[in-house]
């Protein structure tokens, strides 16, 4: 195994990376971002998935969705645009074909759900409510690449409130609400989600962007706009995690361009209880494992013995007051 050097056990100086978010017990704070990790199986030939804090699946809709016509990806400086359009097998196929593998994992499984209507969010939450081995649902109210629903629910506090409320009615599972950065005041959406019962907030989804083919003289993407991710969006994501930390009391899962452990530490100091690795998975499948090792090393190096990860969440806010 090539992961030996990032094993968590060799030092007497004890560092506790475990945490609980919305009732989900995780052994470390490093998750993967929905849509960048398929349903997990795809990465099993490249990393030991049980080394992650939790897995978040590709966004699911109630019925299967075909997705957008190609091209679906476009590389940009320090990032990429995508317009996949939520291609997914639908909830029934997911339960039949993907849950057996996910059941074999020892880490929490978080299922990302999406809908065109409030009722569709309700239906999918209800269907997943009694499926074994699902630890939580992440509600995607921020997908920029679909005609209806998606991001529209995440751009208005009242809409966000209604979706979260409907999902809460459909399930007793913990609810994480994934926010869009394509808003003026992200904290208002976060507050609405929490008042509707969100157990945690995750952010950010992709930033709306576009590209133009100068020889064809038309937009690269069929839907004109597409979602920007990767290191290019990190400063925006970090700022929004900071703002949401000031606004709500529930745990935050921070994401947006995290490639290294240093990036992850920035998010934690800004207020994230956990982080998710997204685009980096495409470039370096071992990024999440390396980030876990890096966080542990940082805690040992920077703090007293017996420091817990919990102790440093949002720490940079305190410095800001002084």
């Amino acid at each position, binding site marked *: 195994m090539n992961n030996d050097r990032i094993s968590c056990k060799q030092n007497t100086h004890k560092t506790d990376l475990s945490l609980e978010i919305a009732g989900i017990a995780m052994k470390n704070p490093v998750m993967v971002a929905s849509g960048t990790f398929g349903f997990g199986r795809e990465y099993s030939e490249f990393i030991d998935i049980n080394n992650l804090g939790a897995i978040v699946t590709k966004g699911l809709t109630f019925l299967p969705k075909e997705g957008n016509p*190609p091209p*679906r990806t476009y590389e940009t400086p320090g990032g*990429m645009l995508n317009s996949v359009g939520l291609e997914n097998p639908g909830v029934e196929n997911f339960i039949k074909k993907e849950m057996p593998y996910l059941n074999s994992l020892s880490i929490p499984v978080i299922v990302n759900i999406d809908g065109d209507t409030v009722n569709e969010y309700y239906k999918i939450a209800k269907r997943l409510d009694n499926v074994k081995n699902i630890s939580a649902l992440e509600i995607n109210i921020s997908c920029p690449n679909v005609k209806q629903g998606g991001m529209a629910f995440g751009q208005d506090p009242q809409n966000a409130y209604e979706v979260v409320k409907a999902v809460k009615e459909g399930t007793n599972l913990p609810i994480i609400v994934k926010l869009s950065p394509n808003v003026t005041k992200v904290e208002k959406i976060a507050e609405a989600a929490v008042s509707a019962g969100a157990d945690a907030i995750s952010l950010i989804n992709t930033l709306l962007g576009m590209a133009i083919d100068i020889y064809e003289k038309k937009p690269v993407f069929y839907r004109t706009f597409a979602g920007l991710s990767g290191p290019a969006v990190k400063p925006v994501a970090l700022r929004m995690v900071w703002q949401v930390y000031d606004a709500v009391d529930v745990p935050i899962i921070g994401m947006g361009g995290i490639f290294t452990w240093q990036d992850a530490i920035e998010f934690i100091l800004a207020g994230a209880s956990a982080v998710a690795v997204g685009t980096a998975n495409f470039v370096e499948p071992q990024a999440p494992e390396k980030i876990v090792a890096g966080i542990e090393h940082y805690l040992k190096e920077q703090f007293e013995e017996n420091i817990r990860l919990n102790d440093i969440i949002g720490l940079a806010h305190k410095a800001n007051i002084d």
Partner: protein
Amino acid sequence: MAKLRFFADIVMNREIAMDIFHMKLYCPMAAKLAIPGQFLHMRCSDTLSPLLRRPISIANADERDGTLDIIYRVVGEGTRLLSAKKTGESIDIMGPLGNGYPIDQKVNRIAIIGGGIGTCPLMFLAKKLATKNSKSGNLVKHSVFLGFKTAKQSFGIEFFQSLGYDVHISTDDGSLGFKGFPTDLIQDYIFDVIYACGPKPLLAIMQAYAVRHNIMSFVSLEERMACGIGACLGCAVKMKSDGYKKVCKDGPVFELSKVIF
């Protein structure tokens, strides 16, 4: 479990035709696993620019000496950085990835049709087919049709000839062989199976020909990719039925008749 991610040593990296480079890698595990039609997902830079890996077809693999060959065209920043790599450096690769060409057919007349850089996976395929033939002692008639923009960008011709193939060449400008496309050359022949790789217009013509003559055909497709392993759903190709398929994981090899160009 063995993980399909390696740091391979560069044994050789040199220009073999205009903007076309041949890189030889030492990576015994990948060389052992590779089959024709598969690709390597290569990190071209240690920095975040360019960000994504580049999928490059495997042009040959030798299990005995533990090496893999790739042949690539310099088209942008990623491949330019690849071309600047020196012997002795190591390179971050994922693979071999994808499904590969099926070669179990018991057939007599095989056509291999390549356009430009699409010739690469067909070289590996041709070698495997030749090995299979010599083992079975079959006297089969295999033909290769290759098209290039111009003579200066042509490559691989001697490789196919050395394996005993009947090689037909065309160039867009007529500087080598027939002036036109390889699809012009094939029209006079009939085959039992066709293996193809190349630009989409060429593949669309091949598809019409194969459907007209009801010839079983396999094509290796190219598409922009992010993850390379079926997770991001970025490299979609539309099929005549069954919606979108992933070039990286369901392909890159598909039945030609099923693809919508």
